[in-house]
């Protein structure tokens, strides 16, 4: 059975379904209890699962991330809700130096099956310290998987996959995607980690987009279609491990590539995607320089007009596509 639910409801449903099946899965985070989470993702869950499994924590990101590591190392499957993805800075040691490395450093003994779920992105006026997109940092660390779903359907399936995965997974949500709706099956299901999704088939230009940029790219696609330009929109869904094959196959078909993400352009994950395409046999198929779109080199400003200007918008994508066609 399919019905339309929000991205946020899809996350809640995914976690609730797996928590009903598996006692080892539990959530911890700030304000996830009766408050229901800063964005409402866990609303109603403490009433069903109780305060032991929906654990409200003090404001101690290092301790709660570390507690998730320790619990995961000893048999639990914790889901840590990091209230704003910017706060990962306080949890960094536990995620980067502990969770990501423990299995390797211990020669394969021990595993850390934890998920860090966290909302990234700008557009709510929360400004510089509450609006970042820092997924590139996490993709740089061997030992972490990084997932970034753009739709309710993807979110539900990928979150289950993340929880079932025996490795530390950073799961990036977007604040502005929480209220977006999509058709989502009622029953539990998993989507494969490391598999991209062609969100819209096309012949003329490949546009690789992540998170909210998938939606902007799809809107750009509608505008471009009126001008007779058919773009193919690819959503990697997982950044690490990256499904470069799907992207390469598309570029070989279209010969043109635009990569767009909200995160700051410099050293953003788009640079990695572009580099991998250049290193692949798609290189010989390119008919135009690759276009890369990302945020400006600024902290996210408070003023709403500037806030929009700081990140790529639909017309930026349209212009970039057209540049590849010149």
């Amino acid at each position, binding site marked *: 059975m399919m019905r339309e639910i929000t991205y946020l409801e899809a996350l809640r449903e995914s976690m609730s379904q797996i928590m009903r099946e598996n006692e080892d899965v539990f959530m911890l985070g700030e304000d996830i209890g009766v408050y229901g989470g800063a964005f409402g993702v866990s609303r109603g869950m403490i009433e069903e699962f109780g305060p032991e499994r929906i654990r409200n924590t003090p404001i*101690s990101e290092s301790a709660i991330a570390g*507690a998730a590591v320790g619990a995961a190392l000893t048999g639990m499957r914790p889901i840590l809700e990091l209230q704003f993805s910017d706060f990962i800075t306080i949890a960094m040691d536990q995620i980067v130096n502990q969770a990501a490395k423990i299995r390797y450093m211990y*020669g394969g003994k021990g595993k850390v099956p934890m998920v860090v779920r966290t909302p990234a992105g700008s557009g709510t006026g929360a400004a510089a310290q509450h609006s970042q997109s820092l997924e590139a940092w996490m993709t740089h660390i061997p030992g972490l998987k990084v997932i970034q779903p753009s739709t309710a359907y993807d979110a539900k399936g990928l979150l289950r996959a993340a929880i079932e995965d025996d490795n530390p997974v950073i799961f990036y949500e977007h604040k502005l995607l929480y209220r977006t709706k999509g058709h989502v099956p009622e029953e539990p299901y998993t989507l494969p980690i490391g598999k991209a999704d062609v969100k819209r088939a096309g012949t003329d230009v490949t546009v690789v987009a992540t998170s909210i940029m998938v939606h902007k790219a799809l809107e750009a696609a509608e505008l471009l279609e009126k001008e007779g330009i058919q773009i193919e929109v690819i959503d990697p869904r997982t950044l690490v491990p990256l499904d470069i094959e799907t992207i390469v196959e598309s570029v070989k078909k279209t010969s043109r590539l635009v990569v767009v993400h909200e995160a700051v352009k410099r050293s953003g994950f788009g640079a990695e995607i572009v580099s991998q395409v250049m290193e692949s046999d798609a290189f010989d198929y390119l008919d135009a320089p690759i276009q890369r779109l990302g945020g400006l080199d600024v902290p996210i400003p408070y003023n709403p007009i500037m806030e929009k200007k700081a990140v790529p918008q639909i017309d930026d994508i349209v212009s970039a596509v057209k540049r590849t066609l010149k």
Partner: protein
Amino acid sequence: MAMKVSDGVQLSTERLLELYHQMWLVRYFDEKVDEFFAKGLIHGTTHLCVGQEATAVGACAVLEERDKITSTHRGHGHCIAKGAQADRMMAELFGRETGYCKGKGGSMHIADVEKGNLGANGIVGGGIPIAAGAALTSKMKNLGYVVLCFFGDGASNEGSFHEAINLAAIWKLPVIFFCENNQYGMSGPVKEMVAIENIADRSKAYGIPGVVVDGNDIFEVMRVTEEAVRRARQGEGPTLIEAKTYRWKGHSKSDAKKYRTREEEQQWREEKDPIEKMAARLIGDQIASREQLEALRIKAYEEIEAAVQFAEASPMPNPDTITEDVFA
């Protein structure tokens, strides 16, 4: 029972001799490692616990097999005390395939998860929140084990210490926070770096009991740790133990020790040697003779020599396995 230290700690002669032997094992392991580093035979760096044998051996002595520990960068003693084999530890320091971490971890990341050693840690204070998490599992699943979290005076200034101890306190987690105060956080004397006299007094800030103990008196360490372990197992939550001790050697391989005097070192070595303290007690109580104790010391020495031979004879890991075990 040959010795009743407390109601909770009553030891047979056999057990006492076992612990004495284990302290020598710890000492000779680290003395041997020191020797090899000086000769350039081991790669990287290392942090030795010579002089701190009573805290490692004493604290672990009162744990059950199902209990767990988290360790520090100065963790060889903890590792041996929790039941690891010296030969596989030495092989790890030699980077061999037969090492506990298949040569991929080295001195600072030695772990023996099966025996409950959740790992040494290269990040000061890095293991403290992990210990709280491991204790959380025990509580959530009613597994009944406790977690002993080793850390030093330096780590007690890390944010992770304060965050984790508060978390353990509010959730009444079955964890024992065991501070080995060896007077120096690398080159930082504890008198200059910690605002208060006794780190154990920080327990008050978190509403948990705090105990100061002579870390070089293995019997006192056992007495105090057993009480804390019992509290934790009974669901009464964490305790902060501060064991005053001293590290005889420098912080790491390259330490000229300019921050302390040779006189101070000599005083601790000659007057407060934890192994000699235990020996004096065993002899004084007529539980063992000097000859018996000597035999155990020699036995430990020979075991370390054998461990070295095992390590030297062990194969290097195949470099092609470099990408294995990044992910489960």
